[in-house]
């Protein structure tokens, strides 16, 4: 994945656990050059190792770690360079989630090797949304949960999000239910 992902993970560890934690993790995964460039693709495996080591260092499960990084993703992008993109995608959660594919598609002009996920959003009721997530990558459902939680904070919309399992009719598709608290 592109360096942006690793950069956000590094920033999350730095902000939340401090520089010592980051250095310990780098040492464990034998990462010598820890300067990530947004515009450069890195092997997915590096990101997975970073997540796994961060989880073991902080004593959390990998899904919990991914969730934390997902929340940080929104926080980070809102203030570092991509804030305009977040603003462009919509002023409320539903519009935003419906525009995610446009957003990732637009990015692929700048990131030619992007293999973005795909999202579709459906209204189930006034305060309930269903999110369909498709990706060629595996094991990132908790990352999506964290991102949606982060979006809840970003839009000042208290919510609860749950991964409910694979989609009924489609393979390589995962479903999430979002309950908006009023």
């Amino acid at each position, binding site marked *: 994945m592109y360096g942006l992902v690793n950069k956000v993970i590094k920033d999350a560890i730095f902000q939340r656990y401090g520089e010592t934690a980051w250095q310990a993790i780098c040492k464990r995964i034998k990462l010598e050059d820890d300067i990530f460039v*947004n515009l450069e693709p890195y092997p997915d495996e590096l990101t997975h190792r970073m997540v796994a080591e961060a989880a073991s260092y902080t004593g959390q499960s990998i899904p919990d770690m991914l969730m934390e990084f997902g929340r940080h993703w929104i926080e980070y992008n809102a203030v570092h360079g991509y804030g305009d993109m977040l603003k462009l995608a919509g002023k409320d959660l539903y519009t935003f989630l419906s525009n995610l594919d446009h957003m990732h598609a637009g990015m692929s002009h700048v990131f030619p090797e992007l293999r973005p996920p795909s999202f579709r959003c459906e209204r189930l009721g006034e305060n309930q949304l269903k999110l369909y997530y498709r990706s060629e990558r595996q094991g990132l459902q908790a990352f999506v949960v964290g991102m949606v939680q982060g979006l809840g904070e970003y839009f000042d919309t208290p919510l609860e999000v749950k991964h409910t399992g694979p989609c009924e009719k489609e393979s390589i598709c995962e479903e999430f239910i979002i309950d908006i608290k009023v």
Partner: protein
Amino acid sequence: MVASIKFLNRFFPFFFALDEHNTLVNIGNSLAKVLNWNGTPLPISDVLQLRFPYEVDLSHEAFYDLIGAVIIFDIKDKKSQIKGEFITFRGDDRTLIFMGSLLLNPDENMDELQLSLADFPSNDNSSNLLFSLKAQRAALEEVTGLTRQLKEQQAEMRKVNQELMQYTHAVSHDLKTPLRNIMSFMQLLLRSLGPLSGPQQEYVDFIMQAAQRMEQLIKDLSTDASIRELPAKFQDVNMQHLIEDVERGLRSEITAVNGRVIFSELPVIKGDYSRLYQLFSNFIQNSLKYRSGQDPVIREEARQEETSWVFSVADNGIGMDQVFLPKIFKPFIRLHNHADIEGSGLGLSICHRIVEQHGGSIRLDSEPGKGTVFYIQLPR
């Protein structure tokens, strides 16, 4: 063919329709929002200040010819662009319809234009484009930031380098005086002691040799520092005269080992005289140092190539093994099987730097027992 306004609005929310008098008779929801249009038919020139990338008179026919037009118009002093096509869509030839989509500049704020993504049709490439423009802008920001960092680091490195060179200069200067004192008091001591025994003389020789070696090292360090620190002064250099000068400067060393330097018809080139002097002087000293059993003969020639001169310095010295060749221009590398031969280990690395500063390159051929040839390529 007749198209409903609903249809046009859904797929081309930035459309507008002109009748044969160039009056705006209909307009897409999104464009209407941007222009604050209240629905009254108006001459197009009153509503839009149209600009095309090329000259067009405002006639119906002229518009009609503009298939695939880019229209630049002013919205509250902000230039925006609509890209699309003029088409007769009503089948009557009296209404022209422009179907287009708004292109935003990356620095334009959609909020200011009171637009949101919903104003772009869902299948419209321009909404992807909007994201792409934002992503491009963020990417540019990153590149600019990285370039700035790189420049700062470069400046920092230059400063550190300069400080290091000044330090080397100062240290070599400060080392020279005590060393000279050691050597002169050693001489005074020898004079006052009178004749020495065999082993005593041997120890004294060792001390003097070590001191001379140290003197050479200090000299080379200081040369190296000034070559790095000071800019080269380029001028026309007559190489024939330069080698004559070098030979004169090294005459006592050359005659001491019965050596000969042979050269003729060397060209005039652009270079820094004193550095080129140092360069060829180092090569000759190197050949004298690594001489074989025969009397040293050093041959200097120049060959003209398309864009450069290639000088060669060939000797009949001991030569060296292939394994040493890649390391030979690094500082403090000495051929370990000739540890008895004097030298600071900086001579060839100084040569390499001088040639680099002249925009040239060095390479060499060498074989044990057959001698060494250095090839110095310098731009013409």
